[in-house]
């Protein structure tokens, strides 16, 4: 358990660095560190499927951010120095909302089963009967492609629509 706590500390520290620093490239790299820490935490919670997907997706996301920053060739942020008056009202209202959200989530998270003892009613049926009814040795793959295949179809549609949206927005328009 000690590794989990140390990783959470590293993740929160680099998240604060990513949000506050002035150099845009440095904040993209700190974002990469947050993603790596999340992937290592997926391994420690015994979820190797998620760890593989999270590492590759996070590498691609850092590549996309770096591509945008290099294309527009702006090295430093254009926000001025010092505290300007327009940011005081959103910051104060966010802190009040944040404290309220945090305190109420303490009550809400108490209703979940304790960390380490999940209630596994449906999952026990999937684990017991998964191998002879679907034939797959990977229980997660059996769930996403056989027991809940309709959700995978929905996800394929969402991915298709997002890719279509990117290609439409960044089309090379023939104006002349």
């Amino acid at each position, binding site marked *: 358990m000690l590794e989990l706590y140390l990783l959470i500390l590293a993740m929160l520290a680099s998240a604060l660095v990513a949000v506050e620093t002035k150099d845009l490239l440095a904040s993209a790299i700190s974002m990469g560190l947050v993603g790596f820490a999340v992937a290592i935490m997926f391994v420690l919670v015994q979820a190797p499927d998620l760890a593989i997907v999270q590492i590759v997706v996070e590498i691609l996301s850092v590549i996309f951010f770096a591509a945008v920053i*290099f294309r527009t060739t702006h090295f430093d942020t254009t926000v001025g120095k010092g505290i300007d008056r327009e940011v005081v009202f959103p910051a104060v209202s966010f802190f009040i909302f944040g404290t309220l959200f945090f305190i109420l989530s303490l009550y809400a998270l108490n209703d979940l089963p304790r960390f380490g003892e999940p209630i596994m009613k449906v999952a026990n049926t999937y684990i017991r009967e998964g191998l002879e009814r*679907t034939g797959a*040795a990977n229980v997660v793959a059996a769930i996403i*492609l*056989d027991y809940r295949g*309709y959700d*995978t179809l929905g996800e394929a549609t969402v*991915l298709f629509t997002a890719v279509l949206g990117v290609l439409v927005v*960044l089309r*090379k328009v023939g104006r002349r």
Partner: protein
Amino acid sequence: MGKGMTVIVKTIARLIAGFIFLYGLYIVLHGHLTPGGGFAGGVIIAGSFILLILAFGAQEMGEKMLYRFTAVFESLGALSFLLLALLGLIAGFYFFLNLFPKGTPLHLISSGIILPANIAIGVKVGAGLLAVFLALAATKFLMEE
């Protein structure tokens, strides 16, 4: 972003890109036996092409050809996934019925419809993410022309 990188990067990219593609194919095909599956393998396959484009420059890789190529493969992947799901409906029972023979467990050809579905999703996700990368990073800007 149009020109490539130095000679060292080009040589190593040429050597390694084939191994990355093979690894992505392995993760897609063994999705029902080991962790991974269609999504992880598809992203890794896209990653091998992205490595080649970044090392050699987009102009030399022929971005127009790649655009058409990825559009065809992405549509093929999505349509074949839908066709596999509709096969259950046509054969009589319900949508997404697992109707291929299930074979012996822990072998490569087993578990019915899960293997073709993994391949379809791997092709679709890989081609889609390659198209997104080409649009974001490799085409010319309006203001640079």
